């Protein structure tokens, strides 16, 4: 057992090295984004001469990164709102109300979890094209909702199943309809689970490449992640500006991570220990 002190310290060395290897690529990229092209060509490692946001400003203004950023924010906000709404409605009904056939329905939704997007993307693209939803924001939002709803329902059903039945009964006796119970009691009571699953969904949608690539062919509809890849082609000989574009896409995620790490981890681990 590495219960002894020296053994623990021996293990700590490679772990610290790994921690450095985990953080370094991002530090490197940040440093590059602060450099001028000349500085970068001369020396990639040295700290930037000055803390300059020129590259960030150039990336933001020149190739539509601000537009892509806004596209992503709007699409992610709408997708997460709908995911939480539909997910909590279904989670409340399946986890707390229960009705004839609710177990079968839950299993059907679980089955959808095991159908990866790659497997359905071709027919989905055709359906979206047939209905005129391809290359539209509602189309992309709908694709995200469809993709992440099974996972959302899974988590929220487990959560609402732990809410005591007495709470529902008491609210019903007070004269609330089922919808009233949902809206006035279940939504507020579900806040911690909704926050956790909401943050995760926001990350999934923000980080997505494939769905966005498939759904949004026109350049002005691009989301930020696709925008970053197009920046690469545009600035293949200006690495610092490209690195600045990468930072623009990564910083919001970093901020969310710093504040909500525990909620993210809760969502990721749900389902791994139960059952």
């Amino acid at each position, binding site marked *: *057992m*590495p*219960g002894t002190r020296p*053994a*623990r310290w021996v*293990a*700590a060395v490679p*772990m610290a090295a*790994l*921690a450095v*290897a*985990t953080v370094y*690529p*991002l530090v490197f990229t940040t440093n*590059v984004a602060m450099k001028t092209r000349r500085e970068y060509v001369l020396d*990639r490692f040295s700290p930037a001469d000055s803390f300059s946001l020129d590259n960030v400003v150039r990336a933001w203004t020149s190739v539509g990164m601000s537009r892509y950023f806004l596209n992503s924010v709007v699409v992610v906000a709408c997708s997460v709102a709908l995911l939480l709404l*539909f997910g909590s409605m279904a989670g409340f*009904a399946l986890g707390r109300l*229960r009705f*004839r056939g609710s*177990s079968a*329905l*839950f*299993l*059907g*939704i679980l089955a*959808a*979890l095991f*159908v*990866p997007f*790659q*497997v*359905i993307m*071709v*027919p989905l*693209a055709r359906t979206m094209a047939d209905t005129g939803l391809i290359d539209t924001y509602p189309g992309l939002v709908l694709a995200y909702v*469809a*993709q992440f709803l*099974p996972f959302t329902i899974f*988590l929220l059903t487990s959560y609402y199943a732990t809410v005591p*039945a007495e709470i529902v009964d008491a609210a019903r006796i007070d004269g609330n*309809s089922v919808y009233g119970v949902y809206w006035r009691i279940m939504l507020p009571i579900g806040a911690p689970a909704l926050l956790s699953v909401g943050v995760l969904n926001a990350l*999934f949608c*923000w980080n997505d*490449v*494939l769905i966005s*690539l*498939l759904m949004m062919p026109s350049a002005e509809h691009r989301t930020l*992640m*696709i925008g970053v*890849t197009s920046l690469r082609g545009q600035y293949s000989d200006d690495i610092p500006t490209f*690195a600045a574009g*990468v930072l623009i896409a990564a910083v919001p995620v970093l901020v969310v991570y710093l504040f909500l*790490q525990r909620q*993210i*981890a809760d969502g*990721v681990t749900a*389902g*791994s*220990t139960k059952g």
Partner: protein
Amino acid sequence: MAAPTLSPARPAPAGPARPRRSGSRAERLAPLALVAPAVLIIAGLRLWPLVLGVNFSFTGDGDRDGVMVGLDNYATLFADPLFRTALRNVGLLVLLLPVAVAIPGLLATLIYLRVPGHRLYRGVYFFPAVLSPVIVGAIFTLLLAFDGPLNGFLGGLGLGPVDWLGDPDVAFFVVVAVHVWATFGMALVVFLAGFATLDQSLLDAAKTDGASFPQTVRHVIVPSLTRTIQFVFVTTMIGMLTSMFGLLYVMTSGGPEGSTYLPEYYIWIQQGRLNQPALASAASTALFLIMLVVGLAQIAILRRAAGKED
């Protein structure tokens, strides 16, 4: 980051429905109304496309659009060197899977045993898992460029430059390594959640009996965490098969010489670039079957291993 796929072990809490007052018709239909939007979306945009896609894979492309062509697409698919490379790469992923599970497992064990700095490590290791593959791929494209920093660093040590992303024998392993770098934190967090359920008295007993670290891992930790390990195996494999697209798209575009193709990239190229949706559907169906087989085989193998341990 892909949707973590969850274990199927928890169906809606079973048991008879609670007796309910017989309300009005609208009240009785309320639960159905609440699930209706979700059911419609999932049935229409997740499950129905699966049926459509399988059906679609038996029709033709181009001139033969909509015509039933039997197994022609599958014949084309398995004759295509790019798809065969993609399958070979899936095989490599299966072989590399134990490594991708062992790394976070070992690290989680050490964090659980409170190696100095363990509080910090968890937060640091988990971070790349929330970054988009596009961002990770872009960063590593810079680091791994032929005239980039890593080769510069190796050159300083007197080691020759390696064409990390340009050498067909090396590129795929590099992309897998980057994927593991980016996602091991996810499995680590899952392992730590499993450790939280571990019976501390067993560990204390092992310590009292003077068990070595490897013995403790083998006889105490692994048997207690069977379920978690199984979960990590399955989710890691699914992650490898379905969330490396972003890295491939940014880092290699399937090259050099098609050596980094995976089925998901093949599907995208056929559908998005070459406009051969029926062939892409055949590849999708093949991918789905691969995932089913690999997933079921893993569960069976792990079950048997767990049975031996008990």
